[in-house]
């Protein structure tokens, strides 16, 4: 059988960076082909070249055996040749209906579209691939997995023969992911090829046929799923053995640090986001919050760190009442915060490392004279120390932190927050989008904090992470804590069920 697409010796350079170095990649018709690699390995660059978004410097593209003139290769040409993209951050018009969004994807759409025809096509896809979605629903009313289905239908509408899916399960519950896998398998069976980008090895093994591994822009190899195992693959990706299983000290919780009692809060849209929520986190304890995104996790973190006022209930930290919380108060009480929006909230993107490190403590007398004149030399020394201690890789201390890789950026935030020796740490998706090496580092750092006696609230959508790191796990659903369990007494399946409100049904 001939590959549908073949990329040969693809090289892509960005100023000062070799993003791809003679990478080979091919996809057979009806194949599910995983593209694996750490962040910065070049997976996204490669798919961007395949989908015509980036020019390539060297190499050849063949589609159905025909050599493509690279100068004619564009996003539009890729679409015309059947290469479709299912975006991770959905490219949908929120206020429009599913039908209208899908109609918009049709490039040859006439001035007056034949909506009945499109409606029929959507229904056909629904029965054929189990891609059920209500064509008249507004996008904002849909769940994340439904939005994803709309994106898939959009891509199929172009007559895509290849679907590129960039970490499609990152936003789904285990149950929703299973649904997606069924759809993907069905699509493959009908002849559509899938390029599946993922960090998660188990799901790659579950659905993929072949795996191509990239590392730092280099092509490491392509293997059949049947001929390999998770350990070997991890080694291919990282270039060394990895131990993601964090060594955990014995669970010996101390005094309560954070006590939330019956708190309620509104979301940005002024809808109730937290509903009568109570929980307690103790010294030397990692308390995990599991939940489908959008069930109040964001608001919970903001309430504790003072970024969002509460409408009801009260908050105590080490016995001090901080019900009328502000970020200043929270910082003073020793609450550290690793926000999920690293670049937008965790740092100032255009500032260099020194100014990023002293964001919260520049007023301390070691960094400024009476809080007025900054002590540049001290700040620089302090930064150097942290860069060394946290092994942060940077091209220069004063270059903007936005140029750092995701892992190194997270290290900057971790370094800053931990150096304040917080008694309470709120960590939101601390390893999301990080590669294995950086994930390992973040988890180890949290564990060290725990051993040192800090209370840690870990909000994560990665259930395996919660299971590996937390001592107790609370499941949040529609702003309420549904259940709090000792980690050793629960399973991923159980969590997945409770996250979707399933415990109501079960009870």
């Amino acid at each position, binding site marked *: 059988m001939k590959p549908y697409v073949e990329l040969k010796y693809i090289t892509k350079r960005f100023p000062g960076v070799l993003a791809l170095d003679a990478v080979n990649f091919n996809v057979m018709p009806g194949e599910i082909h995983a593209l694996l690699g750490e962040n910065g390995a070049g997976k996204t660059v490669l798919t961007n070249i395949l989908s015509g978004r980036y020019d390539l410097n060297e190499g050849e593209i063949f589609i159905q055996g025909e050599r493509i003139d690279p100068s004619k290769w564009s996003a539009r040409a890729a679409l015309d040749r059947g290469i479709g993209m299912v975006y991770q951050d959905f490219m949908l018009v929120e206020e429009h209906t599913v039908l209208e969004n899908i109609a918009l994807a049709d490039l040859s759409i006439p001035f007056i579209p034949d909506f009945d025809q499109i409606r029929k096509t959507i229904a056909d896809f629904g029965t054929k691939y189990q891609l059920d979605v209500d064509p008249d629903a507004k996008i904002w009313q849909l769940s994340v997995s439904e939005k994803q289905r709309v994106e898939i239908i959009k891509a199929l509408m172009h007559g895509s023969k290849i679907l590129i899916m960039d970490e499609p399960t990152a936003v789904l519950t285990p149950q929703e992911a299973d649904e997606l896998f069924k759809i993907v398998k069905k699509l493959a069976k009908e002849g559509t090829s899938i390029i599946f980008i993922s960090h998660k090895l188990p799901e790659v093994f579950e659905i993929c046929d072949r795996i191509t591994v990239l590392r730092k822009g280099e092509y490491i190899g392509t293997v059949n799923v049947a001929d390999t195992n998770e350990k070997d693959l991890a080694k291919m990706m990282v270039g060394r053995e990895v131990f993601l299983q964090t060594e955990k000290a014995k669970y010996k919780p101390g005094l309560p640090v954070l006590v939330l009692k019956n708190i309620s809060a509104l979301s940005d849209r002024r809808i109730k986001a937290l509903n009568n929520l109570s929980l307690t986190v103790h010294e030397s304890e990692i308390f995990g919050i599991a939940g489908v995104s959008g069930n109040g996790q964001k608001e919970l973190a903001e309430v504790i760190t003072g970024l969002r006022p509460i409408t009801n209930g009260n908050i105590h930290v080490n016995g001090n009442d901080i019900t009328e919380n*502000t970020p*200043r108060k929270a*910082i003073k009480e020793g609450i550290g915060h690793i926000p999920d929006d690293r670049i*937008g909230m965790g740092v100032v993107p255009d500032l260099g490392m020194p100014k990023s490190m002293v964001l919260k403590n520049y007023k301390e007398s070691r960094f400024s004279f009476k*809080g*007025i004149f900054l002590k540049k030399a001290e700040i620089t020394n302090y930064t150097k120390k942290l860069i060394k201690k946290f092994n942060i890789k940077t091209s220069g201390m004063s270059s903007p932190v936005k140029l750092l890789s995701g892992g190194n950026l997270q290290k900057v935030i971790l370094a800053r927050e931990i150096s304040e020796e917080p008694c309470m740490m709120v960590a939101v998706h601390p390893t999301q989008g990080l590669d294995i090496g950086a994930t390992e580092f973040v988890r180890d750092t949290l564990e060290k904090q725990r051993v040192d006696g800090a209370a840690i609230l870990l909000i994560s959508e990665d259930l395996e992470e919660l299971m590996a790191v937390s001592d107790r796990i609370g499941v949040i659903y529609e702003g309420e804590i549904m259940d709090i369990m000792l980690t050793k007494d629960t399973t991923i399946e159980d969590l997945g069920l409770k996250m979707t409100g399933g415990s109501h049904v079960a009870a």
Partner: protein
Amino acid sequence: MWRLKIEKRLSYNKWLDYFVPVASMVLALIAGSFVFLINGANPFEAYKEMFVGAFGDGYAWSETLVQATPLLFTGLAISLTLRTLLWNIGAEGQFFMGAMAATWAAQYFSQQPPWILIPLLMLSAMVAGGLWGLPPAILKTKLKVNEILTTLLLNYVAIFFVNYLLYGPWKDPMYPGFPQTPRYPDAAILTQYFNTRLHTGILIGLVVAVILYILYKKTGWGYKIQVIGQSRKTAKYAGIRVNRNIIRVLVISGAIAGLGGMLQISGLQHKLRLGGISNNYGYTGIIVAFLANGNPLAVILVALFMGALIVGGDSLQITMGFGKGVVHMFEGMVLFFILAGESLKRYKLRWVKHG
């Protein structure tokens, strides 16, 4: 076929900060020469006239500096808000209010000696300018009203209020035909140097620029407003009281513009006179601050450049007999090129072979 492609620069090159403005300037001069050619003049001669007019001798220099002085203040005022990512379009009105308050103080405390009176004038001008920045600041922080609109609209209130005073209660009884106040008492007038119109205002402007520079680069407050300017979300996260500092910035900005207004009258005009207060300094200051990229030391250079453009343009009118329109057209062209060139710091153009 070749095609021009716009690409975002992935790295930031420091040399572009210097190269781009100079290259833009050269291109502007080339393009501007067409304006002169169409009007039947030799562009080289015109440029020579402009240069001589602005820098040719001591007097030319003094006039350029005189024009640069008010722009220095409005430019500095706006550079402060620019750093905080706020837009103060109201420097013009604050300039007027400063001039007005100074005039009031000059009359009210007219018996005081200069060493008391001048600081009093400065203080009242800063208070008035600062107060003129306060309503937009409060509306911005409490009700999220866009400060661009409120600061702009307050300009008209300030200008018409001053006009009312000139036509009404403050009109000089000695010259009832003219909308102007009586001359300031001598104690309220700044020293002029070298028998030119150059006055102490420029020195005060340089001091303010250096103070702002130190504030930005060396102090915790400068750091704080930089964080606020680049990411409000991060500032809140770090426990910085964003609203309080936005109010401070807008008020201080107003105070600096107001001080500029006082110096213009006390140093140069010596009385409030209709049409003799601001030559759109508040608006030109926006361009000054923008071209200087919010850097107060660069504001000095840009204000000087703009001053030279004004003085050189005036001398063109006189020596070569151009109408005001031709000169303004040329000035506009120069600004257009420099502003357009700004985008090349962030984007680059590349020829790509196509098809």
